[in-house]
């Protein structure tokens, strides 16, 4: 291609949005779990004092709007849940805190930032860079594969739903609508294919056996713990999703316990304990903050409209995954872009 040959590159330039605090929280907010507690700060967006947590008439937390006001949750971009693990105290694991410090120091020393992950796959270190993860051999190998090809086969890139905790790690806005009179809570999501979740608050049990049909978002049963914490038990996931953009795999044995709190009007604290005996040797807990965007509303987002990525996507052998495969003896048409 003559055209590209003409471009002058500056390979040393790496000054994009990546040079941020290594909380993987994206540019939109979502300070690491502990940092936002009490302060209600989402990366500076909600400067000023924490406003009181809104509550419903019965005293439970209102996870939605205050009457007369608009607003949405600005979900952060958590690309790597392996860096969001917290201990029983809700604080980042010491090893992760150290890894973040080391990465920050490497960047400060002009190390370019990307190498901090341990090299390989554009700076992604794969399973070895996350020794705190309770890997099984296969999940580590799968993660390494996804690291090496830079998440080329991310199902979310196919416009499939994120599923599970990744719904709260995909940077599109969402709302939580409580309907206590109906014993249900509905969560609506702008992005991730413009979908919704229902949390059953009616005290039901999970369907048993094959009546629990595996789905992208799973089956969600919620309950209140006191008036501050919404606990949601989830199971019945299919295996068509990844835990995160980085490609931590999971199986249909996964169950997820979510704990939702709203320490201030401006901050939602999200915590999820992932228990997948099919992929990890023990449960682990991830957590992060989600900032409130005052005045926001959810626009439409239909991912499937013009997903050219699918047309361009090839497998490891160079064959198109979704498009027509070349026929023997027929010259390929040159592909689409």
């Amino acid at each position, binding site marked *: 291609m003559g055209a590209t040959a*003409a471009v002058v590159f500056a390979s040393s330039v790496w000054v994009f949005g*990546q040079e941020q605090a290594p909380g993987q929280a994206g540019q*939109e907010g979502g300070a690491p779990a502990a940092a936002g507690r009490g302060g209600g700060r989402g990366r500076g967006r909600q400067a000023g004092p924490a406003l009181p947590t809104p509550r419903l008439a019965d005293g439970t937390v209102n996870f939605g709007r205050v009457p007369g006001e608009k607003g949405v949750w600005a979900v952060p971009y958590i*690309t790597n849940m392996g860096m969001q693990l917290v201990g029983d105290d809700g604080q980042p694991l010491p090893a992760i805190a150290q890894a973040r410090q080391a990465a920050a120091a490497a960047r400060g020393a002009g190390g370019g930032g*990307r190498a901090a992950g341990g090299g390989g796959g554009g700076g992604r270190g794969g399973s070895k860079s996350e020794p705190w993860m309770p890997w099984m051999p296969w999940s580590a190998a799968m993660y390494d594969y996804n690291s090496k090809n830079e998440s080329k086969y991310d199902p*979310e890139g196919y416009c499939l739903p994120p599923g599970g905790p990744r719904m709260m790690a995909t940077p599109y806005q969402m709302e939580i609508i409580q309907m206590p009179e109906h014993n249900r809570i509905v969560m609506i999501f702008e992005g991730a294919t413009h979908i919704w979740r229902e949390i059953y608050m009616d005290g039901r049990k999970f369907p048993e056996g094959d009546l629990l049909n595996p789905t992208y978002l799973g089956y969600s049963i919620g309950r209140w713990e006191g008036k501050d914490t919404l606990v949601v038990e989830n199971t019945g996931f299919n295996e068509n999703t990844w835990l995160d953009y980085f490609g931590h795999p999971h199986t249909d044995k996964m169950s997820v316990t979510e704990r939702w709190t709203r320490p201030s009007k401006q901050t939602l604290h999200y915590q999820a304990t992932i228990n997948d005996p099919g992929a990890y040797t023990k449960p682990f807990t991830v957590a992060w903050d989600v900032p409130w965007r005052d005045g926001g509303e959810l626009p439409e987002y239909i991912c499937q*409209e*013009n997903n050219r*990525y699918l047309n361009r996507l090839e497998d490891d052998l160079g064959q198109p995954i979704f498009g027509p495969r070349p026929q023997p003896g027929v010259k390929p048409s040159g592909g689409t*872009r």
Partner: protein
Amino acid sequence: MRTKFAVVVAGIALLASARIMAHHSFSAEFDANKPFKMTGQVTKVEWMNPHTFFYIDVKDEKTGKVTNWAMEMGSPNGLMRAGWTRNTMKVGDKVTVEGSLAKDGSPTGNARAVTLAETGQRLFAASSQGNTQ
């Protein structure tokens, strides 16, 4: 190898305020270590999900050869939060685009910022670049 056209390397500013939109893997398709800045005339705008595309004709100043480049941005929602509307950029407009080149060598770029020549307005393109670590 051709000589350069209106493409120069830019010291690209930290786009900390840009609303990002995640969809497919940025780094599977684009190379963040191949930044570009080029100016051309808009030939087509596809204001669509999950990524808005626009196309610009870029002229090689030495040879006169014109190449039509495909530029990928974020979703219309993300772009609107960054200050765009569907009519911000129209066919025929002259624009300067900053972004990263495709890995496959095709005339395709991931736009991070677009400057409209007519007004000088510089808008972020809701790219997911820089958020993949």
